[in-house]
Every structure is written in C-alpha cells, then in structure tokens.
C-alpha cells in the first residue's frame, strides 16, 4: 500500500532576489502548511537577474500558475510585451531578421507535416519563416494580449515579457508578505552538515542555527549553500561560450516597442531591451577589450562591467539542497534565456517536490532533467556564436553534440531535430536560426509538396490582416491598462 509522504515542515530559501521570492511564493502555493523562511544574504555582484528583467514565453505560464498577474506586472512592474527579437549582423553586416514565439511562427506551415503524420510532439522539418504574425504586428505597432476567446486571430501568437526588476521584485515581495512568508536578513556564517550529503542547518548571523528539511540556494553565482557541499562539482562552458565580461549601459530613454534587438559587434552580441523605464543595452564581451572598444560596441559608456564565468553545477540538487538560477547554471542573461532556465528549474522542482526526506531516485531524475535543460539553454546561447559572421569573429568554439546535430540538419536540410527539455519549440528554433542568418538547406518534403506556396501565402496574408484588425495600437492598449 502506497503511503503519502510527510510534508516538509520547514523550507529555507537563501537569497531574496526575484528568483528567491518567486520560489518562496511557488512553495507557499504548493505547501500551505510548511514553514517558509526567505533569508536575505548580501547581494551577489554577479547576479544579472537583479538587473535584466526579461524571460521567454514559459515564464508567462509559470506566473499565471502562481497567480502573478500579467495585468499587474504591466501596472506595477513596468512590464511590456516582446513579440519578436530582431537580429542584426549574424549573417553579415547588412543582414537582419526577426524571430517570434509560438508554434505558429512558421506561416509556411511546413511543420504541419510532422503534426499530421505523427500526431504528437514530433520532429519537424521546418523552413524558417520569412515572416510571422509577431513580426507583422510588431512592425505595425499593434498588439493586445488575447484573453483566450475562441477564434481570436491573436490566439496562436506567443510573446515574452520584459519588466523593471526592482519593481517586479517589490511586487513579488508584496505578494510574499500577504502570503505570510517570513523574511529575514542575515549573513550566513556556517553550516551543520547532515548524514546524507546535505545540510542539517545553517548558522546565520544573529539568528543562530536554522534547521530545515529542504534548502533552496537562490544566492546567485556564488551558490553559497551548494558550493559548501563536498559533492559540488562544476561543468565548465568556457570552451563553448566566449563571453567573459558583461557590460551594462545606463538606462536610455523610455520606450514602448514590441521588438527587442540583438546586434553582433566585434566584442560579442549587444542586446537592447525596449523597457518602458528606459532602453537597456548590455553587451557580452569576449577577450580583453579595453574600455574604449567596449564603449564603442555598447554604443554608450558602460555603467558597469561585471566578470562572467559560464558553466553549470554537475548536479544542481545535492542532499537536501537545490540550487536554482545562477547558483545552478551561469548562463549569459541575454534574450530572456537565463530567467527562462531558472523558471523552468523551479517548475521542475514543483513537479518533483520531495517530502520531508528526499528520495535518491527523484533527486537523480531532477538532476537528469535539470542538466538537459541547462545544456539546451547553453546551446541557445551558443547558437548566437555559430551564426556565420559570429563564427568568423569568434573561431574555435566547441559545440555540444546536440547543437552540432541541429546546426548540421538545419544548414543542410532546414530540419530542426527535437531535443528533450529544450527551452524552445522546434519551430521557434527554426525561426531563430533563420533570423541569425544561418543558411538553411532544402527541405525535400517542402520541395516535393504540391502547389507553389501561393495558397499558404494567401492564407497567411488573411491571418495577418485579421490580426491587425483585432489588435489596437499597442500604446492605446497600454494607456487603457494603466
């Protein structure tokens, strides 16, 4: 007879950045009777999540599930919508193209082959889209998130959010307070190990020993808890990712736009997020460029330059300590991928939430899947340096076998193989590769398909027209919201 496991009596979340607070809210919703303590530790100088507020579409689903309202994010946290990321220069100096989100980013619908044939989440031979609904709407400056009404022409459209980080954190802290989550500020002075490779308690300045069944390490790249454990080992990504420093400019003028931009510079990719609180420019810096070169590539004087060391924990969950976010994987905080990864780790933890004691098999399953998630997120970054012009500028980078396979298949056949625990749908990968200026090979299935594509083209034009008619000017919608 199967017995219910005991509920954890107490969980300590170390780190009170946005991820720590969001994790605490998630745990409070899942475990209303468990005592929760968020321990604020001294801020991590390398914690980009504190500064760069954007993610990918998955985060919208997680927020929704945790009752973090998107409308309130717009009202209280300066949130706005990104329909496409426009890439400049991946394919050479004059190349530019935009990539959107969602399964329907491919108007040619060549992926229908896989869907109709397999009936499930199967491989797709994608021809990257020349256009997508997201691009059409972003170009026209029209958008409103659909409310799920059936038949809406905006239903297929997915999007990412960007937000103001301090305001976002403040909103989450407010929610956590209402949910009765304890919050204390104290530096960690030491740990008492337990017998199973974890932590029995931590010693906090002025608070004495704090025991718990489970500890979440949300302390950023220093991984204050995880790095204490004797089994903690790191996997180095230096040979795959060239960025060693990240330069951040002062916020520019406020913007309301449905598109963000990424531009290849001689030092690395520059990312410009159109924040309602100001344009945010950040640059991944490879090599040992001086301040002037950084200034030139960033397009503004750097307000901050932070060292960066890419890699991940071999096993993010050791004993009763689960590392989340930068504590588990240090990934360039660009285009929303780092937050996306952190949020998918959190969702995985909710799925495999342990009882008072941790079972070795579920920890192993968590680590197996979290490792795949992190590796595919690392591929997401690495793809940017595999773009033709980037590969010339940053030669000699290694690629994971999965990434090498995807690039090979895309370049020769326009096919994007499915990968387990990938941050994006195969259609989204296809769109991104195309936007990065990757040459795409011929899909035989598309070539052999009857018709010249004019019918698909007409159908897309109709959809685009309907979407434009249904969506108000984005500024108008925003004004109504506020």
């Amino acid at each position: 007879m199967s017995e219910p496991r005991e509920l954890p009596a107490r969980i300590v979340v170390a780190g009170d950045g946005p991820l720590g607070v969001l994790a605490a809210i998630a745990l409070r919703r899942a475990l209303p009777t468990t005592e929760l303590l968020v321990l604020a530790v001294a801020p991590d100088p390398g914690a980009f999540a504190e500064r760069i507020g954007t993610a990918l579409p998955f985060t919208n689903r997680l927020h929704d599930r945790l009752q973090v309202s998107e409308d309130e994010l717009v009202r209280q946290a300066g949130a706005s919508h990104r329909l496409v990321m426009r890439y400049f220069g991946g394919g050479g100096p004059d190349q530019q193209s935009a990539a959107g989100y969602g399964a329907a980013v491919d108007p040619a619908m060549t992926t229908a082959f896989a869907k109709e044939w397999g009936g499930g989440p199967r491989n797709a031979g994608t021809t990257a889209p020349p256009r997508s609904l997201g691009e059409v709407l972003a170009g026209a400056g029209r958008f409103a998130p659909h409310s799920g009404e059936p038949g809406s022409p905006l239903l297929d459209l997915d999007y990412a959010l960007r937000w103001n980080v301090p305001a976002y954190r403040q909103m989450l802290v407010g929610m956590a307070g209402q949910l009765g989550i304890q919050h204390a500020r104290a530096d960690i002075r030491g740990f008492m190990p337990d017998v199973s490779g974890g932590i029995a308690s931590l010693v906090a300045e002025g608070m004495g020993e704090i025991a718990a069944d489970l500890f979440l390490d949300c302390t950023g790249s220093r991984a204050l808890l995880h790095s204490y454990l004797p089994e903690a080992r790191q996997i180095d990504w230096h040979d795959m990712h060239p960025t060693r420093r990240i330069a951040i400019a002062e916020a520019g003028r406020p913007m309301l736009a449905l598109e963000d931009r990424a531009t290849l510079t001689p030092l690395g990719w520059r990312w410009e997020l159109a924040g309602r609180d100001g344009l945010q420019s950040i640059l991944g810096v490879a090599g040992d460029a001086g301040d002037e070169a950084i200034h030139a590539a960033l397009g503004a004087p750097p307000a901050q330059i932070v060292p960066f060391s890419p890699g991940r924990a071999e096993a993010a969950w050791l004993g009763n300590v689960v590392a989340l976010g930068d504590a588990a994987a240090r990934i360039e905080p660009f285009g929303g991928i780092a937050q996306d990864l952190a949020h998918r780790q959190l969702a995985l933890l909710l799925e495999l939430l342990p009882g008072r004691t941790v079972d070795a098999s579920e920890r192993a399953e968590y680590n197996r899947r979290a490792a795949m998630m992190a590796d595919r997120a690392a591929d997401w970054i690495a793809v940017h340096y595999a773009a033709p012009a980037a590969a010339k500028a940053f030669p000699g980078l290694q690629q994971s076998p999965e990434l090498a396979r995807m690039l090979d298949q895309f370049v020769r056949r326009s096919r994007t193989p499915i990968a387990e625990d990938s941050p994006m749908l195969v259609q989204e990968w296809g769109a991104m590769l195309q936007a990065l200026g990757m040459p795409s090979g011929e899909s035989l299935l598309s070539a052999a398909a009857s018709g010249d594509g004019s019918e698909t083209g007409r159908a897309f034009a109709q959809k685009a027209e309907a979407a434009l008619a249904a969506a108000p000017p984005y500024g108008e919608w925003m004004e109504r919201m506020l």
Partner: protein
Amino acid sequence: MSITDRKPVRVVVLGGGTAGWMSAAGLAGLLGPLVEVTLVESEDIGIVGVGEATLPHIRGYVERLGIDEAAFMQATHATYKLGIDFRDFGRIGESYVHPFGTFGEEVAGVPFHHYWLEMQRQGRAADIGTYSLGVMAALENKFRPPSADASLTSTYGYAYQFDATLFGPFLREHAKKLGVERVEGKVIEVVRDGASGDVTSLKLESGQSLEGDLFIDCSGFRALMIGGALEEEWEDWSQWLPCDRAAAMPCAHVTQEIQPYTTATAMPAGWRWRIPLQHRIGNGYVFSSSFISEDEACSAIAAAAEGTQLADPRVLRFRAGRRKSSWNRNVIAVGLASGFLEPLESTSIYLTQMAVTYLLELFPIDGKIDPRDRDEFNRLVDMEYDRVRDFLILHYHATERDDSEFWNHVRTMRVPDSLQEKMTLWREAGRVEKYSDGLFYDASWIAVYIGQGLLPERHDPRTRLPDPARIERALGSLQQAIRDQTAAMPGHREFLTARAERLAAVP
C-alpha cells in the same frame, strides 16, 4: 534547382508486405517527382501480416497520404480500437485496460494518480480505470471519436484493428496510383559494387535486374539485404523478451457486439491476443519455445479461443531485437528486417511508420547519402525501439505470477538499467520518468504499473493537503461524468453500422 530539372532518385523496395507498401506509398506520396519507386514482391512468398492492431499514429499516416478513412476501413475490415485489455498479467484473475487516453486530471500541479493512491489507501477510491473515459467506453463497447476541445470527451484517442494481410494490398493500389512500379519476381542475388560495397541492383529469377540508388529492405525476417548481403549485426533481446513464436488462428464472432479494444491474456508460456475485426476475430498465442512446444501452443490457442475456428493455427517464428544499424550503406531496413518487438502493445506498424517518417525527413538529397543523415536516422530508430522495448519488458517483469517456469523466469530476470531506473523512481516516489519524444507517455506507464499491481511505496506529500472528503467528492463526480458520457455514446457496432461506407461486404 527546380524540381523538374532533378533526376529522380531510384528507390527499390524489396518485399510487398505491410512495411514494403507503407514505405513505397509514403515515399511516392510525399516525395513525388523526386523519387522513382519500384517494389519487387513475389506471390510465392507469404507475408507475416499479423500486426492486426495499431496505435493512433496510423491515422496520421492514412490522412497524410490523402487516403479516405472509410475506404481504408472497408478494405481492411477495420474496427475502432480504444486500448488493450490486459488479463492475468500481474496476477491470475486480474485485468486492466491500457487506454489511448488519460486517467483524471492533475490538481494543483500534482498528477491525478497520486490523489488516487491516497484515496485508495483510505479505501475511498474505485479501480483507476473508472476514472478514464477511454477505459470505460471500451469496457462498455461504446465508440465515438473524441472531441477537439479540452473537455472530458477529448481525453482519449483511437486507432484501428484491421486485417494486416489486407492493408498491404490496399496500399498497393494506392501506391500504384502514385506511380510506384510493382515487379513480380524472386530475388536471387543482391549485386554490390566491388569498390564501395553499396548495393547496385537486385537480380531476379526471371533474369531481370533492378538497378537503384537506394534500397529499402522490407523482406521481413529474412532481411535479404541488411542481414544477408551486408551482414549488419543483430542485437538480440531474447534475454528480456523470450517469446519467439506465435500460433495465429482466426475465429468467427461469438457476440453481437464488437469490442472496441484488443484483449491480451497472459498464458503459462506467454500471452494470447484477441482482436475483433468486422467479420472475424484474430487470435494468437505468443509463446516462448523454451517453455512450450509448438504443438502444445497450437492446442492451447485452439482450446482458449472462442467461436468457430476459421482456419488451423499457423505458427510464426521470430526473435526480439534490432539491427545495430537499420541504415547501412545505401540499404535501409524497414519493418521486421530492421527489428522485431512482439505485438504486446501493437507497436509493429508504428515502428514501421516511424522509420518511414524519419527516412522522409532524412531522405538523401539528390540520392547522395550523407553519413550524418544516416547516423541521425539510426539514432532515432534506436531510440524508438529502445523505449518500446523497456515498456514491453515491464509487462512481464511487473508480476506476482509464480505458476509456471516462464513467469518465474521473467519475474526474476535482470532487466535493462534504463528500465530499472524507471521502476525505482516509480517505487520510491510514484513518479514517471519524463521524455518528450518516442512512444508511451505517463498515462501508459501508470496504467501498466498500477494495473499489474506494482504500487509505489510512497506518493506525493501534497495529497495530504486537501480535505479527503473533497477529493472523494471530486473522484465521485468524475466517475459520474464518465458514466454519463459513456451512456451517451453509441455502441461500437451501432456506430459502424450507421456508417456503412466503412463496412466490407459480408463474405
């Protein structure tokens, strides 16, 4: 290059069974002018054709090729299938249905089966099958296609039960319309290029020579090209799947109603299938010749099968395993030449379909084989086979049966590590290992684990949180909704009869 300028790739398919015609029709239908497909088959060589039950994926194949479902059902005497009823597997006298569908819904991020385990512990839950519309509709002999919305009526899927010996010929007619050339004859020699080792042509008894760029080996267990000529290694899995024979025997219907499901009943040295088609019922005993003789097995199936015997039992021989590489040089093995897994979960046609799908995705551009495409094909085919293999082994291993040598063997054997890990995760925490590609997701594993009495030791702690009376009420209303929906569905035969274009003429 415009499509009309290209020289079509010459594809020669060897073998006219299900795999041969599925490959030929798929290639000709979806690559059209890029290929020139010839299929060689011999009327003197029989086909295995026991794959009578299918998985829902087959619908994708039929639709994608633009085949009319009614014509297909009529030609193959097909009935609808909602799942498989497994009897006597975990213990003699117990049964469960593995549906093409789910059990309940997750609540607050916790999968349904954890709440069910908790309620069952408290003695407040019924059999888990009563919380699945797919299961209940099957057991009530009801059928209606699922809805496309997100409601309860969308929580199941369906496939077909058909006469596999008629499926090949049906596809043959379709394939010929698509331009596939059929050649009658026996292959006496596989001719290879001395330098490259590639196959260049097939020499027929008639003296005719079939030249090609690419050769598809659908010659069944004989594997004339992949096994015979190229000597591609076979990975043997009989230590885990010891059944190596089947005694097949058709019978007449005994009841008015046609079960919209396949029945698999465990036997002392294997199991037997019962597959209701439009006019007859397919029966067969899948057994291990190490534990029972062919004669004994034939007597056993004749004794066990209900209804008038329409033919004597016919014995088929096979072995579980797969080629180390299904694509070697310019030969691609599809179907039984590539691998064999016994029909316990009706995966044979699925595996063929997947191989054709991957071949279409990775088809050599202008006939030039890129080793990276070949590796990718082999990787995907291996993954499909390996995942199905573990799931099949579970049906034998998760048992309390100790009433025969056969069951003692499979109960106590050492299973692959990949399966052992899945079972440990289930036993310790009630969780199912997740993957997003391949066959058989959570609900399938849960159906077999629970159906065969392999219950976890512990389940999710969050099941302690809601008031048990509330969970009990929720389970009760789900059961009621399923009863109501099932009652509103037409009977399977009634549904078929109302669509006479799907029915073959009574012989």
